């Protein structure tokens, strides 16, 4: 895979990555948010696969397949199960309303572009040029984490941050060792499993997963 086609497919995968992150901010329906997260996982896998095919690195393509299975199938499946156990299907009232948070997303994109300019300048290539996109996804993930009230939406925010970090790692280093990627992926999987159990417990104990209700200690 050479030349324009490589750049085009790389850019398309990056575009899908950031589009999914923005749409997560846009939608209120938790099921739609999980679907978008799954789509982002697939886009991330495609991104890694494109990099792998371009570098003729079979290991990287294998990692891409692993990323796709974990982030496109397994994690959304777990989230869906947590949702079935956890009741309410909508993000009722985010701390920042949707229109404002979309505008914030635009600002975050510009911020990401500003802060990654030195990184891109180090070694300009199509892959490093896409680094601002990955940083945008990280920042949008943080924003979701901070402003959403439902536990599940916050988990998705956390996973967005992780997706962004993974994308950034692949874009800037052209290949993370398999062991490292495996370790990170297992960590994420474990975190989601723990959060899922936590969400279910919260639901049975308090009847809701609105984290703002959990500020006070009680016995």
């Amino acid at each position: 895979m050479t030349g324009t086609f490589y750049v085009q497919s790389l850019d398309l995968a990056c575009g899908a990555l950031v589009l999914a992150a923005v749409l997560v901010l846009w939608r209120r329906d938790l099921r739609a948010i999980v679907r978008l997260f799954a789509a982002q996982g697939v886009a991330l896998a495609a991104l890694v696969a494109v990099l792998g095919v371009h570098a003729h690195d079979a290991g990287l393509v294998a990692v891409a397949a692993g990323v796709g299975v974990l982030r496109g199938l397994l994690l959304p499946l777990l989230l869906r199960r947590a949702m079935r156990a956890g009741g309410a299907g909508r993000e009722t009232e985010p701390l920042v309303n949707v229109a404002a948070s979309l505008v914030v997303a635009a600002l975050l994109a510009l911020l990401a572009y500003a802060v990654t300019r030195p990184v891109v300048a180090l070694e300009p290539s199509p892959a490093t040029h896409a680094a601002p996109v990955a940083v945008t996804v990280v920042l949008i993930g943080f924003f979701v984490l901070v402003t959403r009230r439902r536990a599940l939406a916050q988990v998705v925010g956390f996973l967005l941050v992780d997706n962004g970090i993974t994308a950034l790692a692949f874009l800037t280093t052209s290949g993370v060792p398999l062991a490292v990627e495996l370790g990170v992926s297992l960590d994420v999987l474990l975190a989601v499993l723990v959060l899922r159990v936590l969400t279910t417990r919260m639901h049975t104990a308090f009847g809701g997963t609105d984290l703002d209700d959990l500020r006070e200690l009680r016995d």
Partner: protein
Amino acid sequence: MTPAGTVGAAAQVLLVGAGSPLLVGVMRQVRARMEGRAGAGVWQPWRDLRKLLRKEAIAPDGTGPLFRLAPLVLAGTALVVAAVVPIATTASPLDGSADLFAVTALLALGTVALALGGLDTATAFGGMGASREMVVLALVEPTILMSVFALSARVGSTDLGAIVTSTLHRPELVASPASLLAAVALAVVVIAETGRLPVDNPSTHLELTMIHEAMVLEYAGPDLALVEWASAMRLTVLLGLFANLFAPWGIAGASLVMLPVAVVVFTVKVALLGGALAAGEVFMAKLRMFRVPELLAGSFVLAVLAVAASFFLV
């Protein structure tokens, strides 16, 4: 200024002027068929216009010249935009003096004139419709500018003809993220600007939801005909601009021979887009008024991301 460009611009104005009511007819017909009705046929908008034009011109008591001027300004701006925008030819003689900003300003001028006409009647509905239209306009204008700006950044010119020509020369750019994001943003904005579902429902007079219809409620006879005709022209021009920015194939450059082909191709493109829009509307409900800014903010973000992508994904 080439003779082909002049003929092309004249052809564009004729095509849009005569074809836009037909486009509305096609869209209504598609919708009627999909809802299981027979429909009134594609010529019905033209028949309506003829009927309205034969009526006596009536202005409500207490309205000033603004009320009478608004339809004329709306129709005039729509015709000028039809001559400028690359619909059938990229070599329009007005192209040099009217770029993206001028086109957006002309569209806004028409909208503002109509909103002022709505306010002039001093009825509750006119004021309500005008204020809602201004809300939508304030959110739509920056998005139109931004999304076309994303396309113009790589050309280095805000001239619409130049943008279309460069897309013709480098078709692979259509699949770039900047172009795709801009396409989605522009699609949402075109729907909002022309008052289609889910932003406004063109076929209802339900007071709680209407935007465009509320402003023109007091118009009758030839004035109403002019407003309806101008709205149809704006719809056609915006759909045509959308089609030619993202799929410019078939448009004529400076050659006279290509012009008939370009006219036919444009008609097909706009009919397909309009049909798709009408078919999509069947499955859609109108958004609550308070959710509309959310939708438009979303499209604005997509446009900003498109501009950003056109700069950093190079």
